[in-house]
């Protein structure tokens, strides 16, 4: 039957959506374009060149900051996602219980408490621990990042768990499946898209972080974002555009990879 009347149409929505996508991409496209500028300027085009990529690549500070950023983001997203899967099971596959509100409040706390407040509180707390223990390594950053990544990992996982049909799990239990077996063979396969989404969010949130890192890091622990923030105070050259473009390329590759992974699983 031909549809004469499109029930999904709302006037003007498509125009706004298109405007939205243009708005999202225009600044990024320009940023990328100027990373190939031959001149010193980030707004006057002087010809095509890779010179800023070469100079960023040879910069040892940038190399170290990049590795540090990735290590922290990997550690934090793995820890946060694992913790979030368990927590999501405990908060969805259950009847209401005492203390539930406290658990929810704790999980959502990093979303509610402004980052700068957490940053300040961690600055104070970790500087105490640094004095007591003398340890000034990367674990402070990994743990701090894990904490604020938990709600981001938790949300899509929980949403996925809630959207699932419970009768399969119950059938599994009726057939004498142990809780672990039911989880592994029934819940987990359906949960993967949620876990991937959660891990993606956690990774990006960690990689993205400037504020908490800026306050928690010890001397010489710059991540790529805090290094860039420091550079913005000085004279900006397309080198910043080059780093940005490289980061952008990594992001696009990762998102696309995840995208096709979750697609084949469906």
């Amino acid at each position: 039957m031909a549809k004469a009347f499109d029930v999904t149409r709302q006037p003007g929505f498509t125009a706004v959506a298109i405007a939205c996508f243009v708005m999202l991409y225009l600044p990024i496209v320009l940023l990328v374009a100027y990373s190939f500028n031959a001149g010193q300027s980030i707004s006057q085009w002087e010809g095509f060149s890779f010179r800023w990529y070469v100079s960023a690549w040879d910069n040892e500070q940038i190399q170290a900051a990049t590795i540090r950023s990735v290590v922290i983001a990997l550690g934090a997203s793995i820890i946060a996602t694992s913790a979030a899967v368990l927590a999501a099971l405990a908060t969805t596959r259950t009847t209401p219980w005492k203390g539930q509100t406290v658990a929810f409040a704790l999980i959502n706390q990093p979303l509610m408490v402004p980052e700068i407040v957490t940053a300040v509180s961690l600055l104070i707390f970790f500087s105490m621990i640094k004095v007591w223990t003398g340890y000034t390594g990367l674990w402070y950053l990994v743990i701090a990042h894990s904490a604020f990544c938990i709600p981001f990992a938790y949300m899509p996982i929980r949403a996925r768990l809630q959207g699932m049909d419970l009768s399969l799990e119950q059938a599994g239990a009726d057939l004498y499946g142990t809780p672990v077996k039911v989880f592994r063979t029934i819940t987990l396969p359906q949960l993967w898209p949620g876990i991937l989404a959660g891990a993606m969010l956690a990774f990006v949130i960690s990689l993205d972080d400037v504020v908490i890192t800026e306050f928690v890091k010890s001397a010489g622990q710059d991540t790529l974002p805090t290094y860039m923030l420091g550079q913005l105070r000085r004279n900006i050259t397309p080198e910043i555009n080059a780093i940005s473009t490289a980061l952008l390329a990594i992001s696009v590759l990762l998102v696309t990879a995840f995208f096709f992974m979750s697609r084949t699983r469906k």
Partner: protein
Amino acid sequence: MPDPISSTARTRAALLAPAMAILIFAAAGPLVIVLIYSFLTPGDYGGVVWDFSTDAWFGVLAERDFFTEELSWADAHLTVFWRSIKLSLLTALLSFIFGFPTAYFIATRPRRSRDIWMLLVMIPFWTNLLIRTFAIMELIRNEGTINTVLIAMGLVTQPVQMLYTEFSLLLGMTYVYLPLMILPIYASMERFDFKLVEAGYDLYATRWQVLRRVILPIVKPGIVAGSILVFVPCLGAYVTPRVLGGGKQLMLGNLIELQFGQLRNWPLGAALSLTLLVIVMVALIFYVRTVGTEERSHG
């Protein structure tokens, strides 16, 4: 019926333990220390001296004249408070205005292309916040793209000052946080059954009525989540106002940082942080209440 996976209290506690431990250690617990610090005396080179004092809390809103000891409103702080609240509300509103139709647009695409559209939303989101802020900065600075185009077209002779204004903060924050509005709205709309909308039209509803009475109530959790996700980071925004405000348009986050940096007044910084936290909590409670009562009245 008890659930097969986490039926007993002990299992539940064990499942929750790792997340709770991390969150208490590196998120909730340290807040208590901030509260203690806000009642101490600032040390000469940062840090604190362990002497009880309520000066920091007075300092949030009032200042004492250095010579006459007279108390007056801390106008500089009030300006920053007002700017933070105003810009955060406006950003959430703008994000909704752009984000809702976009999420709706994506949710109404054919199933296979929806993912592609969401990918297009996710890519800027995956791009570092600082990079996006920087991209906006390049766009709106005096020698930037917009001004170059405007001058070339002969529309203006002098560059329009956009950077370091409240407009630049608003633009920057909307740009940066927009995906946080689109994601949850889309998630709540993705499984939306358009048969409900068809039913609405069968009952002679207009497009507006369908939108307001059928679609909006169902995607409301997504809108609430999106607004919270946008409003809260805006209120405590630090990077965007630092880069786009250039020290001229301070927001609360920058004011707090100043106390821990240049001004070396950790207790005042702690008190300001907690004040920011209280404002956020009040906003959240207000929000939850509004949503709660509306749900009841829809009964």
